Structures are given as C-alpha cells and as structure tokens.
C-alpha cells in the first residue's frame, strides 16, 4: 500500500469512529439511568414544566427516533441550547464564548511542553550517562508522575496572595493575580498588535502571565513524556549505522545532529505531540477549575454537575471531532515525515 493509500484508509476509518463515538455519548445520556429532564429541573420541578421540557427535547419519542434526531442535528452542527448553565442560550454561542480562553491555555501549554521537553530530551540523548542527563531524565520522570490537580494547587499556594512567592509573582511584570481568567480583549482586533503595539502588548503580556502557571501545569505530563521519548529516540538514531557512516565520511557533527539525528528522532515524537490533545482536554477540566479560568473544560464540568445534559452532549461531540481531527493530523504528519509508512504496517 502506498503512503497516500495508507492515509486515505485512516481518513475513511475516521468516519465510523466519529459516528460510533457519538453513539456512545447518546447511549450514556439518553439510555443511561439519569433522566435528562429531571436533571435539568432539579428536585423542585412541576409536572407541567417537566412535560414542556420533555416535549421540547423530543424525549417523549421512542429511543430510535431520538437517536436519529440526535445524530442528524449534531452532524449538521445544530448543537441545541443550554438549559441550566445559561438557559435559552445556544450551545454554539456558549462554546464561542468559552473557547478562546481554553485555546489560549492549550496553545501555551503545548508550546511550553514542546520548547522545554524536546530540547531537554535531545540534550540528554546527545550527552548520555552524564550527570546532566541523569538530572534531566530523573526530573522528567518525576515531572510526568505529578498529578495535574496537585501541581496546580501547589502553584496556587506558592504564588497566591498569602504564599511565599505571592508578592514576587504579583509584581513580576504586569500586576496580575494567579486565580482568574485572562483578559483576551486584544483578540477582538488582533491586527492592533501590529498597528498599535504600545497599547496592546501590555495586555498581551498580562494575559500571557495570567495563563503561564496553568499552562505549565497542563503541559507537565506531556513535557515529561516528550523528554523521555526524545532522549530514547536520539539515542537510537545516534547509534544507528547511517550515522556511523556519516561520521566515517567526515560529515561535521553539527550537520550529523541536525540533518540525520534530529529529523529521524522526530518521528516517534509525533504521536506524543498529537497525543497531548487528549491530555489537554482531560486536564483542562482540572486546571481550569483550580485556576478559575472559565474555559471549555470548566463549562463541561459545570454542565455535568448541574445536569445540563443537552449541553454535555454537544460539547462531547465537539471534543470527539477535535480528537479525531488531531488523529488525522498525526497520520498526515507521519505520511509526510516517514516515507516508510504504509509499507511496514
């Protein structure tokens, strides 16, 4: 099978995966033991209100009709509306309202993980069995084992108002508190970052500083993973025959490292990097709850605990789409980077 044939196959496989994943969500929400209508109403609902909501959601129809409605509306991106969190608001608007902060958080946590984890791992791999390698490896292993929620509250404790570094953190750069959402007002007109840098860059820096602790926490597990895998990947390639040949030919070390080691060592890192998406979506619930950032993870958790099941279904669908797209992206990157793909699997 050719490379693009392999990619095409993966692309086709994504369709049943999305359908089946959404079906699982449907089954949990509608066929599960929790009645969506009573979850929305809470303990003090009148029967009239009950009937009205039931009719509105189409829950009085047979299950298979509900299923078809559910699937058709989701796949046409009719995401319904929120019932408890923000009644009578379209789920679409809610997502647009909450998503930017999560994207901001996710962007920086991916960036931190990439630009700290991979260089550290490569450094450790290029200097194996030295004290700095041991330090970096051990740090990566412990860093990876730290639960997000614990790291988050420790950071909040240390950098918060009453913490030992609280004062120092507040006065570092623009004044911000560690808890609370970042102000992303400058996003409404991103071009102003270029046209009026004096006004907008302080806002940008404040938003960056605000998100930094949360991004460090969220990137922690991936950072450790990237370090570990990066180290083994470099070690594997640097001991391979073609590197030895290049060295024997007299290729300078710099060009060996960048041309022959670096590119090949990136291949096993691809699934780790794309796999970050899974950790980010799961971790955002915890990190956003602890740091008080009202993003998508926070929205999802509030929707679940307050019984806003229609909104939960829509959010789940968005997350599924996102993860499947990331998976496709991973296969795409594989196809581009690794010419052997499709032949060995």
């Amino acid at each position, binding site marked *: 099978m050719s490379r693009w044939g392999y990619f095409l196959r993966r692309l086709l*496989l994504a369709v*049943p*995966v999305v359908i*089946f*994943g959404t*079906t*699982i*969500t449907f089954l*949990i*929400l509608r066929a599960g*033991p*929790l009645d969506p209508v009573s979850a929305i109403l809470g303990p003090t609902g009148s029967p009239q209100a009950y009937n009205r909501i039931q009719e509105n959601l189409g829950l009085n129809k047979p299950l298979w009709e509900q299923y078809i409605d559910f699937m058709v509306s989701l796949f046409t991106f009719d995401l319904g509306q929120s019932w408890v969190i923000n009644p009578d608001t379209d789920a679409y608007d809610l997502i647009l309202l909450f998503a930017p902060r999560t994207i901001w958080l996710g962007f920086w946590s991916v960036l931190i993980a990439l630009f700290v984890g991979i260089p550290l791992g490569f450094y450790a791999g290029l200097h194996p069995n030295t004290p700095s390698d041991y330090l970096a490896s051990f740090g990566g*292993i*412990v860093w*990876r*084992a*730290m*639960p*997000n*929620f*614990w790291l988050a*509250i*420790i950071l*909040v*404790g*240390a950098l*918060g108002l*009453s*913490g030992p570094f*609280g004062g120092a953190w507040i006065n570092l750069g623009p004044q911000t508190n560690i808890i609370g959402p970042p102000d992303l007002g400058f996003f409404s007109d991103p071009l102003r970052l270029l046209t009026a840098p004096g006004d907008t860059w302080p806002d940008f820096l404040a938003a960056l500083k605000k998100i930094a602790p949360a991004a460090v926490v969220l990137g922690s*597990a*991936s950072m450790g*993973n990237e370090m*570990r*895998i990066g180290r*083994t*990947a470099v070690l*594997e390639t640097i001991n391979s025959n073609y590197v030895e040949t290049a060295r024997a030919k007299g290729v300078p070390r710099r060009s060996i490292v960048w041309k022959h080691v670096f590119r090949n060592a990136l291949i*096993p890192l691809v*699934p*780790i990097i794309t*796999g970050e998406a*899974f*950790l980010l*979506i*799961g*971790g955002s*619930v*915890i990190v956003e*709850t*602890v740091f008080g950032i009202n993003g998508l993870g926070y929205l999802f*958790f509030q929707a*679940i*605990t307050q019984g806003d099941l229609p909104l939960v279904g829509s959010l*789940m669908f968005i*997350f*599924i789409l996102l*993860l*499947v797209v990331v998976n496709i992206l*991973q296969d795409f990157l594989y196809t581009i980077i690794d010419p052997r793909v499709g032949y060995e699997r």
Partner: protein
Amino acid sequence: MSDTSPSEDAPLVDRIAANPRPALVWVAGFAVLLALEFGALAESLTSPVPWADLYERPAGALGLPAGAVGFVLLASAAVVAGIGFAHYWREGSLRAAGGGALSLLVAVELGIALGGNATIAVTALALLAALALVGTGVARGSPRGAVIGGIALLVGLVGVHAIQPLPTLLTRELIPNQGYEHPDRGWVGPFLGLPPAVAWALRVALVYAYAFALLAWAWRGYNVFREHYRYADWTPRDDMVDRFRNHYWGLFGFVVVFMFVVFAVFAPPIGPTTVERNIMNPYSHELTYWDEAAGGTATITVGDANLGSSSAGNPDRNVGVMQYDEYDRFHPFGTLVSGKDLFTFMAAGARVSLFIGILALGMSGLIAAVLALVTAYYKGVADLLAVIVSDSIQSLPRLLLIILLSVVFAETWLSEVYSGGLLLALIFGATTWPFLWRAVRGPALQVSEQEWIDAARSFGQRPHVTMKKHMAPYIIGYLLVYASLTLGGIIIATAALSFLGVGVSAPTPEWGRAVSDGRSYIATVSWHISTIPGILVVIVVTAFNAFGDGVRDAIDPQSAGGGDAADEAVVAAGGGG
C-alpha cells in the same frame, strides 16, 4: 534419563512425590506464615464483602423473607460444592475441585451472614469435607487431593474464625499505641509503656518485616521449584527474571509498589488509629486522656477530641507531621482540617485506590487479552471491528467520559457499593481496555505470524487452545508492562475525581479528597494536608512507571519506548488528571 527420576513428561505432582522434602519444607514455612495472620485473612474475606446482599437483594426483589432465601442459597451452594468435590474424586477434574472449593466458600460466607446455627452447621460441613478430602488424598497417595483438602480446610477455618476468633499476630490489640501520659507513671496504655510514637513505629516495622518475609518465602518457593521440580534446566523466563534482577530502576519500582500494596492491604494495623473509630463514627467511640486541671483521667468522645486537634492553618492549633495532639494521640502525618488522622486516612485511601485499580485492570486486561488473541488469530473483519470500537472509545476524552459516567450512574444502586468504588472500577475497566488492547495488539499479531501457530492450525488444534497455549504466554508480559503504567494512571485519575468531588464519596477516605481539603492551607503551617498525599501519589506513580520500564526491558531488551508511546502517555497520566 535414569530410571530413578521421573520421566520428562511426568506431571509436577509426580516429580514432587519423587522428592518431597524441599516442597514439604517450603509448604511448612508457608503454613507458619499463613497461620500467623490467618485471622486477618479470614476477616478480610468475610467483612468487607457484602455477602448478605447475595440473598437480601433477590429476596427484596421477589418479596420473600430474606432468611428463607438465604437458607435455600446456602443449601444449594453446599450441594454444588459437594457435587464438585464428588466429581473431582471420581474423575480427577481440577476444575471441578476449584469450583467446589469456591462454592464451599460462598456457602460458608452465607452461613456467617445468616448467623446462629447456620454458621456452626456449614462450618462443620466444610471441616468434614476437608477431612474427607485430605483422608482420601493420603490414603490414595495423591498429594493433589491433600492440597485440595487443605484449601477446603482453610475455608472451614474461615467459618471457625467467625465463631471463635483465631489469633492474629499483627494487630493493634497486641501492640497498642493509644494511651495517656501519667505525670508519675509515664505512658499508660501503649505497648510496654513505650511512647505511642515508638509503639506505632514498632508495629509498622513488624508489619513490613512480615510482608518482606512473605515475599522472600515466595521467591524461595520459586527457586525450590526451579531447582528441584522443573524439568527444564533453563527456560527463556529465567533470562527475563535475571534481567529484571539487575535492573535497579525496575527493582526500585517493584520495592516501592510492594510497600504501597502492603500499606493498603495492612491498612488496619498500620494506622495509628482505625477508620471506624477516627473517621467514620468518631462520636460513637471514647478516648481516655490525662486531664491536667483535674489531676486525673477523663474521657471524651473521639469526635470532640478531633475538634481540638484540627489543622486549619492556625499556628497555635496545628497538629503537624510526627506530632502529638493535646489528647496524647500520635499523628505521623499530622491531622486533616477536620482533626482526623491523616495517616489512617491515607492507608485506608490506598486500599480504596488499590481495590479500584486492580478490579479495573483485571476487567480491562481480560477484555484486552481475549480481544487481542481473537483479532490476531482471525484478523480481517474481527480486527477491523475491534479497531473501530476501540478508536471510538479512545476518541472520547477519557477523563471527561469518566466524569460523565460517574455522574450519570450516581443515583443507581451501583454507586452505593463500596462508596462508589465499585462503580468507578467498572467505569475505568470499560474505558481502559482499548489502551491495553492497543498495547498488546502488535505482539499478538507478531506471534500469530509464527510457524508454530500455522503448524498448530494445520494439525487441527482448536483455535481457543492455540490461543491459550501458544499465543497468550507471549503477550502476558506486554500486558503486565501496560498494566503497571495504567495502574499509576488509575490512581491519579481516582484522586483527580475525588479532588473534583465526584467518584468515591465522603467520608470514605480517598487521597484526592485530602488534597482538596487542604488546598487553602498550603502556604500555612498546615501545609502537610495537601502536600503529603500529593508526594505519595508522585512516588507511587513513579514506582509503577519504573516497574513497568523494568518489566519491559526484561521481556524485550531490544525495545525502548517508541511504538505506542502516545497511548502510554495518556494512560500513565490518567487521561489528564
């Protein structure tokens, strides 16, 4: 082969019969170790499992008197046990013997749950069965019969323990650590008048000494088998064991994991106080302390004493690490905000985490192994279907799916069992198997390409026999690697859920709840509440990862990361917890 030693095809039983001495020595040592702690073992079979539910639930559903249903169930379990043993006796079927022993255990536990004469009757029955089995085993010269009789005897002794408690070595009654300090006479109450801290440390040291003795004896048992009873001088597994023994990072992981398991299994004797007394029902228990003002002893309920020993960031009223509170109680890890003992809380929480982790892993490991074998053997459509199902489950964000499921099922009876622990274990089991399956799919496909699988197929061996005998042993090691990583992830995810307030419900201890309780006090004198559980999670998870690395290097020295690293990352981090 010479005439004196058994032939190479002789079953293990015959080889033991030919040279029984090393085996007998080992069994005798094991019996001594078992006898020292038998009371605790019997207790752990009886009390935590809701045996009474077995008849009360159906009786409730059918509207019949619970006692009658219980007796019917008891009688039928006993009959099943009898049929099983009779079948074994006639045909020598080990499966029948195992089934018999299991239903005998169910019968005994039902008898204990029903109480009164039922207990005595069923215990007598079990002891009689054990006697008969051992007797016939010895009379026939069949060691296997004696072993099965021994198992039946243990089941009977569980019943005996319910009637008349058998002694246990490692109990707080034997080495008590609770007491008060008399101004003239020193400590009154703790073991030998030692300070409570020393008495407690002694008990913990004894527990760990016992556990490591048990471990060493098990290792010795493996060596006895290898030297005296295994036909082959060398097997590939010996190399794996040797590689693991020289893998210090893996050994570190193994030792820490073992200590964690002991911490969880021996939680009742290890804690300075008990969960029931200190955490669950503090107002139903009393405590004697020395009242300075009155110049004599006084009593107070544990609940009231807890109010005085709370740690909530106040420098004047804080019980930190390795400190005594004002009622002379010793707190190795300090106290919680509620004044309860953190060490006891942690030990009980370890139990909950371990229960959830092992049940979930057992479930998902079984699904993953069976699926991997079936899809690798048949390939084609079966493989494609499994890929789609597992990809779909993996496309749902794991932690969010777990939160969703635990909220949706929160009102059902499942969430009442073990304070929601069972439900969580089932949820983890249902959502973890795709990761495990992914991990063993590659090795399973690899082994299915081997010639011996083809050979087995061509001479007509039935597929499930081929899978069990020729494929399963190859993938078990890989499963163990991922199981170890996943267990760390499950511990993190369980803690994350209770941190968020879903999952295991209060007051049942769970590590994440301690972290959540103490989060406002991190920068105060009560820093220990959140910090210690977090550090323990980091150590335990690191150890599980290290153990997994060690096993991987032992079974497959060529591999080093790569492959399914992304899946590994997700499971090992608990899906982002």
